[in-house]
């Protein structure tokens, strides 16, 4: 059997195993090992198993993963997202649909210090949902805005998804972070416009919340200072070249710890919980990564990615057509499978093609992460929807999915905008210090 056919068969088997409910890392590792053994030889395959786990676990560059997760967990434990909600509330709360707008704005701001979508959505379930209920918000709009708001976390830096993309596609994480910033701000704006339009058409969906006067606004605004300081320190530090992305993660986590202690919100218990949460997520991510790296050795030895790229390029299609097609593939996959699985299985296959037809791989990183943003809420497998439905028991899952449809439309609109104007993503990285 030619290596190329093995590569295709291996990829198909990997998909089958993933959908059979096998833990991702083990499924990738299994196919990678046996595929490599078949395409090359057993000793080579054993050699891959021998070196990959240690070299992955003990990789300095990957220390960024636990440290940024820790920063997000500490920010969550220090309840910084609640402060951001209060700040946003004083400005938007009195508008039509204002509480939903507040939720999205606070999520966007919290996204700037946390890279996880689940933590953000979980906070908003506790803080924003009860208030939206009190003001008789439509439950689809209320839960939809929380679900969609949470997904912004992975687009605005710091973001775990960008890190993973950067590692697999061998791109600078610092540049990817900067590339995600402007699209992130645009996405928040799109969500706010979506909510405003919905409530303008049907004011019953989101009645105005309590009005605040100028003085109240002035008092509430500074409550979000800690998030601003953290963001400027971490992303500003990377941008200005004070420290590497890895160091930024450690500095950010430590600064978050100090802020939490200064505000007297971090207790020994919540600190331990943040560490525990981080350790668990870290182990999970590294298991998948180890398996995915073994799988990548297999893909590399078969040359399937290059062959796929060559084939598509030989079709002589416009690069815009291919981009739209890839986005459709991502939307389908994102709806069906976990976003981590999607990144690990598709990025090695698509990246040579994307570079071959002349798109910037940094731009593609933003597209992939946007696909994860949409996949995080798209039915039937929307991670954020599951989290919310676990926390808010009295709203049926179907209602939440009904609520996210307008936001999904906003996600797709942003992706199309990115295809039309790649500069939205590429402008900031192009100004970065080298």
């Amino acid at each position, binding site marked *: 059997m030619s290596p190329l056919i093995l590569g295709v068969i291996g990829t198909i088997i990997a998909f089958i195993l993933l959908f059979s409910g096998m833990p991702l890392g083990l499924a990738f590792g299994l196919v990678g090992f046996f595929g490599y053994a078949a395409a090359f030889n057993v000793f080579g395959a054993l050699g891959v198993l021998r070196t990959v786990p240690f070299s992955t676990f003990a990789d300095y560059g990957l220390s960024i993963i636990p440290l940024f997760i820790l920063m997000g967990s500490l920010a969550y434990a220090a309840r910084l997202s609640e402060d951001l909600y209060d700040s946003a509330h004083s400005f938007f709360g009195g508008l039509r649909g204002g509480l939903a707008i507040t939720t999205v704005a606070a999520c966007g701001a919290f996204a700037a210090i946390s890279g996880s979508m689940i933590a953000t959505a979980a906070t908003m379930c506790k803080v924003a949902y009860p208030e939206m209920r009190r003001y008789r918000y439509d439950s689809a709009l209320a839960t939809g805005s929380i679900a969609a708001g949470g997904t912004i976390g992975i687009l605005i830096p710091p973001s775990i998804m960008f890190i993973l993309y950067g590692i697999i596609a061998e791109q600078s994480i610092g540049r990817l972070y900067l590339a995600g910033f402007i699209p992130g701000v645009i996405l928040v704006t799109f969500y706010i416009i979506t909510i405003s339009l919905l409530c303008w058409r049907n004011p019953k969906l989101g009645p105005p919340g309590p009005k605040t006067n100028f003085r109240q606004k002035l008092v509430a605004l500074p409550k979000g200072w800690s998030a601003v300081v953290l963001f400027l320190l971490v992303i500003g530090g990377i941008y200005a070249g004070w420290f590497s992305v890895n160091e930024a993660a450690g500095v950010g986590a430590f600064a978050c710890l100090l802020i939490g202690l200064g505000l007297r919100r971090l207790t020994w218990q919540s600190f331990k919980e943040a*560490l525990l949460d981080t350790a668990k997520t870290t*182990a999970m991510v590294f298991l998948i990564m180890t398996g995915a790296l073994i799988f990548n050795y297999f893909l590399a030895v078969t040359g399937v990615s290059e062959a796929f790229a060559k084939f598509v390029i030989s079709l002589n299609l416009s690069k815009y057509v291919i981009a739209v097609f890839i986005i459709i593939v991502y939307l389908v996959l994102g709806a069906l499978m*976990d976003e981590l699985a999607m990144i690990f299985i598709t990025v090695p296959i698509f990246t040579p093609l994307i570079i071959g037809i002349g798109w910037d791989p940094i731009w593609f990183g933003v597209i992939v992460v946007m696909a994860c943003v949409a996949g995080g809420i798209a039915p039937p497998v929307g991670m954020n929807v599951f989290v919310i439905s676990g926390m808010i028991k009295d709203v049926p899952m179907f209602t939440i999915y009904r609520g996210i449809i307008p936001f999904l439309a906003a996600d797709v609109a942003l992706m199309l905008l990115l295809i039309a104007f790649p500069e939205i993503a590429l402008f900031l990285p192009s100004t970065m210090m080298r």
Partner: protein
Amino acid sequence: MTVLQAIIDKCYKVIKPVSTVSNSIGMVILAVMMVLTAVDVTLRKTLNAPIVGSYELIQFMMAITVAFGLAYCGIERGHVTVDLVENRLSKRNRAMLNLVTGFLGLLIAMLITWQTSVHITKLYESQVLSQVLLVPVYPFVGVVTFGLALYTLVLLVHLLEFIREVRGK
């Protein structure tokens, strides 16, 4: 109580405390890693005196944090899985499918653990040292092997549980 259930319970009695302790060690090392990075950057920026070998220290600490957290993550079922198909199967079919994927997962985990343990001896024999601090590397591969072995045990117990489910109906 069946024999199988008794074995499962016994295994958990040993694995749970060990993985909880090792996970706690990993958590402490993680906190140290955070402080070390912050102090290193601060010293470099203010006194122009970075910590020597911080790069290697972080590598070693990473190996410990990740490896020591694996088993705990496995016990807590922190795995990422795609359960779209699984949820639509009958209880019996789901148990069968779990049995198959559980066996395959255990197989690859055993292979990986075995090969990583081979890596220890290779590094020990060739006396590989880290470049700056000149510390032998093999003990850290040992740590990773320990973490992987403990995780493999968790997968084995999961497989026993899947067997129980298949036999249960």
